[in-house]
């Protein structure tokens, strides 16, 4: 079955996506971009182009370059909005015989849906080229305030482009779908959509898998482009003040500044200050002039604070229109590239008394992604007879110091297996206990014991030398097989645990919540154990070094080391992390002296080489 395309048909830009595997994926157009300008043109060479190519020639061909057609689709010519927009749209528009709108391109008159169809046609062709398969069906998004005629016209545009439109869905609904909010019960969602040229707010209510739009509002002429304009005006004025040069009449200078402003705006979303550096922007009698100015995030925020406040005010009204108060709202979704601006995020968060808006999906792509999610629902994807389960909690074993070492992380799709090699903690240890644990906590004692068994017959050897392979294998039914094998002797021991995943949903949630609330404490405990373990290891190595060095080690160094060892021993069983660290460091420095000393005296150092690799020069002696 061929894929269904999800399309965000925007006023200035469009995006499209398909469901791939378990998630939506934005497709790139033929020019390699993830968004496509919603523009169509008949070029001077009488060629019809859409997207970026139409945009590039728009200046030379304003009469035959059609954009913002979404402002006209499905509306009557006498509509107040249409009349307002006609004042600034550069192409010719007339009233059709049915009272609708007709747009002139070349010497033909087109309906808005025919123009939209040309954009959709390009999108279809680009998607087919990208996927290497035919696309016949689509889900297209429209603003929540679109009426039946506008929706029908958009649907017709799809059909003209050769796409069977499976459904027209609301943009805010698509945004909620992208975040999976349709699965929630009785939730109230606010979608705040600050695009390049338009601002929309919608309040949604989800119940029984149905998303209902409760109210909408916005400003059809407020957007991120206004921010660019404000920045540009400010910089032109500042430059005039500083250098006495007016670059607002210099076309090339202005063009360079415009691009620099766009870059600076993006940069100020992640850093607090940026530099606009445009060498040789202009010249006067004294020679060339450069444009170098620093712009802070605070300044940008100051420049556009009125617009941001305005958007919050609109949002407040829309929530009231829905009959809710802001405390009723459960989820907030941000859409549109401009919402990357920290000041917008903060303003929205502040309005909701600190409630965090959803983040994660690229705000430029969230609507198209949601349309693809809806398409995926129609597609049903591959019939999931083989429902693959996941392990709800991590599985692992207890290791030195009572630490829980995870072998299989939670949310791993099963069947799965994992092997890790462990060793012994003591010299000549001939058996090891495998203590199998389930849970997210750092310490073994805080997790659930699934089973224990002993692997004996390990060949006697110094600690850390034996190699014991522990493998976990969970089959599709959740049955866990744990085995341990001594690499040297080949001795194996194993256990089968039947119900490793059979926890009730509540139990799993409780355990996860538990782990989350103890995360900090656990981390500290874990760190303490790790430090204690390395302290013990160092004591062991140090004692061994002294013994091995025998008479070769000078007494004073030996004495110093012994002193440090006993010092470390005295603190290591207390729980003072810093004291243990300090004593460990001291011992470690001292033991290095022994190494240095030995190498100075010893000709070809052999036995000690293993212990001290820090100061073992390969040349010199």
């Amino acid at each position, binding site marked *: 079955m061929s894929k269904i395309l999800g399309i965000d048909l925007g006023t200035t830009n469009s995006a499209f996506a398909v469901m791939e*595997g378990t998630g939506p994926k934005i497709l790139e157009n033929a*020019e*390699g971009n993830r968004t496509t300008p919603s523009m169509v043109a008949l*070029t*001077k060479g009488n060629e019809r*182009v859409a997207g970026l*190519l*139409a945009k*590039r*020639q*728009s*200046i*030379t*061909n304003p009469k035959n370059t059609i954009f913002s057609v979404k402002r006209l689709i499905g509306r009557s010519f006498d509509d107040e909005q249409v009349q307002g927009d006609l004042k600034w749209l550069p192409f010719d528009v007339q009233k059709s015989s049915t009272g609708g709108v007709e747009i002139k391109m070349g010497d033909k008159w087109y309906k808005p849906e025919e123009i939209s169809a040309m954009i959709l046609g390009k999108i279809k062709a680009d998607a087919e080229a990208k996927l290497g398969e035919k696309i016949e069906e689509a889900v297209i998004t429209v603003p929540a305030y679109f009426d039946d005629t506008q929706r029908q016209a958009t649907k017709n545009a799809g059909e003209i482009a050769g796409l069977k439109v499976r459904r027209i869905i609301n943009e805010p609904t698509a945004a909620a779908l992208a975040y999976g909010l349709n699965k929630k019960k009785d939730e109230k969602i606010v979608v705040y959509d600050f695009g390049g040229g338009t601002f929309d707010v919608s309040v949604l209510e989800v119940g029984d898998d149905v998303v209902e739009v409760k109210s909408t509002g916005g400003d059809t002429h407020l957007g991120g482009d206004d921010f660019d304009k404000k920045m540009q005006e400010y910089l032109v004025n500042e430059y005039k003040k500083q250098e006495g040069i007016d670059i607002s009449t210099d*076309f*090339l200078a202005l*063009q*360079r500044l415009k691009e*620099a402003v766009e870059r600076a705006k993006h940069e100020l979303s992640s850093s607090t200050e940026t530099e606009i550096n*445009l*060498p*040789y*922007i202009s*010249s006067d009698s004294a*020679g*060339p002039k450069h444009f170098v100015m620093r712009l802070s995030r605070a300044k940008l925020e100051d420049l556009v604070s009125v617009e941001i406040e305005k958007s919050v005010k609109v949002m407040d009204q829309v929530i009231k229109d829905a009959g809710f108060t802001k405390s009723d709202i459960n989820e907030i979704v941000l859409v549109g590239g401009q919402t990357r601006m920290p000041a917008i995020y903060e303003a929205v968060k502040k309005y909701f008394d600190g409630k965090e808006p959803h983040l994660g999906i690229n705000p430029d792509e969230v609507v198209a992604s949601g349309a693809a999610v809806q398409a995926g629902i129609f597609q049903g994807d*591959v*019939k999931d*007879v*083989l429902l693959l389960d996941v392990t709800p909690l991590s599985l692992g074993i207890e290791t030195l110091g009572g630490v829980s070492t995870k072998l299989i992380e939670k949310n791993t799709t099963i069947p799965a297996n994992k092997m890790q090699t462990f060793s012994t903690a003591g010299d000549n240890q001939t058996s090891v206990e495998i203590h199998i644990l389930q849970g997210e906590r750092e310490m073994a004692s805080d997790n659930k014991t699934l089973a224990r068994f002993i692997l004996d017959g390990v060949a006697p050897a110094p600690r850390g030398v034996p190699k014991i392979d522990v493998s976990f294998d969970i089959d599709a039914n959740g049955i866990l097989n744990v085995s341990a094998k001594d690499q040297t002797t080949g001795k194996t021991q194993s256990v089968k645990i039947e119900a490793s995943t059979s926890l009730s949903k509540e139990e799993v949630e409780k355990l996860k919540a538990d782990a989350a609330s103890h995360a900090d404490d656990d981390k500290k405990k874990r760190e303490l154990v790790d430090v204690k373990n390395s302290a013990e290891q160092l004591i062991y190595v140090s004692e061994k070094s002294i013994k091995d060095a025998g008479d070769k080690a000078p007494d004073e160094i030996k004495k110093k080391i012994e002193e440090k060892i006993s010092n470390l021993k005295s603190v290591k069983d207390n729980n003072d992390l810093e004291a243990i660290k300090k004593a460990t460091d001291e011992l470690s420095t001292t033991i290095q002296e022994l190494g240095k000393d030995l190498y100075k005296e010893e000709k070809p150092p052999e036995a000690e080489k293993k212990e001290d690799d820090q100061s073992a020069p390969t040349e010199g002696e």
Partner: protein
Amino acid sequence: MDDIQEEKEIDETQEYLDGWKRAKAELINYKKDEDKRVQHLVIYTATQVIKEFLPVLDSFDFALNSSKDEEEKKGMILIKGQLEEVFKKQGVERIKVSVGDEFDSNIHEAMNQVDIDDKKMEGKIVGELIAGYVMNGQTIRPAKVTIGKIN
């Protein structure tokens, strides 16, 4: 009864086998896609880096246009040449623009129009404002040009 049972089991087995094959095929396809994705990512990353450098090349152009000191110019041309050499190795080339060229939106972006008298130049390129570049055949930035217009 037994026949029905058996048929059901055969069906189920078929379904599982089908699912297994699909899963396996999907994994193989995923790996192939992943390879392509990685390759694409490498190109994409390189393109992004190159794009960040383009304004530096532009600045050389502006500097060369406004400098009158021949010695200084020579030095700048050499430094610019070094930079261009690096770009060339990455498959980046400057789009050649000459006065009188036909406008092509695949590689040109019209920034403004100027009045002209020569009818032959109507709709043609009369000047380059900012250079454009292609990288391995793909336009990474169109040349920004001025178009002639009969008043």
